[in-house]
């Protein structure tokens, strides 16, 4: 059997709407993955540092207050700086449809907004991490 998938799940910035991030974290755990849950009040530097320390396979972010367009580019910049280029980053939360293309252009592998089922997230993570 291949190595268990390890995911870092985090919110970015000061927004405290944590329900979605917690739901995803528990769904991934239920699917047999290892989850490092950082929760609220995280800066991009911390998320990247944790992903490196934990040798994570994927980073999952949750944004609810419009901060995604500012903080996601910073996150990718730090990832590049620290040499963490080869792991996918996915994002969920309140993300207007109009922003999805921009996020993908920045390097986000998957955007999950309202209407996403937990099964869809799990399947996506399993697929992208087995590539």
């Amino acid at each position, binding site marked *: 059997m291949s190595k268990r998938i390890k995911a870092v799940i985090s919110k*970015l*910035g*000061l*927004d*405290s709407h944590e*329900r979605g991030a917690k739901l995803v974290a528990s769904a991934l755990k239920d699917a047999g993955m290892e989850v490092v849950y950082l929760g*609220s*009040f995280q*800066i991009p530097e911390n998320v990247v540092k944790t992903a490196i320390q934990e040798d994570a396979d994927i980073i999952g972010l949750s944004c609810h*207050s*419009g*901060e995604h*367009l*500012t*903080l996601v580019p*910073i996150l990718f910049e730090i990832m590049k700086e620290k040499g963490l280029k080869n792991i996918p980053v996915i994002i969920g939360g*309140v993300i*207007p449809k*109009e*922003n999805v293309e921009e996020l993908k252009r920045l390097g986000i592998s998957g955007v999950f*907004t*309202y*209407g*996403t*089922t*937990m099964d869809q997230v799990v399947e996506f993570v399993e697929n992208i991490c087995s590539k």
Partner: protein
Amino acid sequence: MELMGKKDVAEPGYREKVRRTKSWSAIDLKETYSPGDADEDNYKKNIGDPGQYPFTRGIYPNMYRGKLWTRRQPWGFGTPEDTNKQMKYLISHGNTGLMVFRDQPTMHGLDSDHPLARGEVGVSGVPLVSMDDMEDLFDDIPLDEISSTLLCASVVSPVILAQYIAVAKKRGISMSKLRGTISNDPIMSHVCYSDVANPPKLGVKIWGDLVEYCGENMPLWHAAYVSSCYNMRDYGLDAPEEVAFGLKIAATFIDGCLERGMDIDNVARRMSFYCAAGIDIFEEVAKYRAMRRMWAKMLKEKYGAKDKGSLQFKFAVQCAGHSLIPQQPLNNIARTSFETLAAVLGGAQSIFTTTFVEPVCLPTKDAQRTSLAIQGIVAHETGAAAVADPLGGSYYVEQLTNAVEEKATGIMEQIDKLGGFISALEGGWVQKVIDEGNQRYQKEIENGDRLIVGLNYMSIPPEEDTVLPGGVLEIPPGTEERQIERVKRLKANRNINLVKASLKELTQGVAMGENENLMPYILRAVESKSTVEEIMGTIRTTLGMSWDPWGYRNSPFV
């Protein structure tokens, strides 16, 4: 929200029937209600005319014939100048009171140049770092005429209020003329915003400071604003729980003030509440009526309040955010219209009609105007405002009022058994009730016990869904850079000796203990151009905590 893409749980059809026969909060309902259900025999004692104890039917005899509710759509976005423009726009389109949202860094007591503030400056509120920001925010707005609600996490509220007072003083307006409300609910801030940034002990101390200071200096100001009702309802409570939690939290604060030796009427007279308006119209009306009666009785019987103003339950309403969904977003206009109607039928003093874009993005101009229009329609077209307590005497509504009161009373007794609200909170019970409420709500949507149009009933494929008219609100480019530049300029140009001296005094004030009111110290620090982070950091470090709640930055003065 997890259901989209799955099949509807119920199909619209010929000879369709009502499916749910209990209220939205699971109170069982009869087929019909008749004389005898309405408790007419106890009318004088238990219901009373509008304006009469126990105020079940409203706090004024003529209600909206005397004055309509305040239309209070909130704003806070971009820089203080941007927000000022938008507030003026709202006033010119029918807003009769202001409500200011602070951005997330300000709410947590951080300056715009703090590392955690990145990406959040001016995003979901306006940055209020120093009194200069407040001055620009209220530029050309008459502070002695308008009523303003300033929203912030409680522990930071004194700084925000001090900024407001400082600007008024600079314009030659006495603080005794200021009219408005400062958010002041440390329990809500602790549960709903951040536990580490809002330690309960500091929160309760500051609650008392604000109530005492405003009681002595600002007779027109509401310094005791219990916003737990709305916020915890939106996190998962049902209507009777909203009543019970709100009243118990208020009682916790009152007890704290009485322990400090304050007079009950001085505390209670200026207390107000921030309640939700859910989608179940009759239950919401019953909830407001029950809450008024329970408050009046609690204040009179338990606390011995004498002032009529102390017995009158005054409340603002926001249409419940959780009732709105992102699917088919225009339907939210219908939802918030019913909720606004419920608030008016229930006798609210002030209403914020949540915008229909709420579940999708921050409020656009179109969405804000639509919310104001809804309130205008309810006020002047529907006839709902012409008569005080129009549903009073309805067999059903009177009975439902009693049912909500009975359930809420049971919950309050349970909280007492747990040793009061703070013990219930510390023991994890409060969070458990909220979480269970959430899960129950979700489960009832999944099993079809609750039908929500667009979610599990009459849903449409996402690709056919409505594109939002008015588009999505975008943050003006360069907002954060401009604000950080501003804060840096302030820090470079002010008289640093004045700042240091005022913060030193504040340190001494904090060290004097719980009964020393911090407001005068905070006001002096604000007038010396100290920033919100400097003031909060000084208070925190004096009490042995880290400079900022997450330990990212240390005091710049050591």
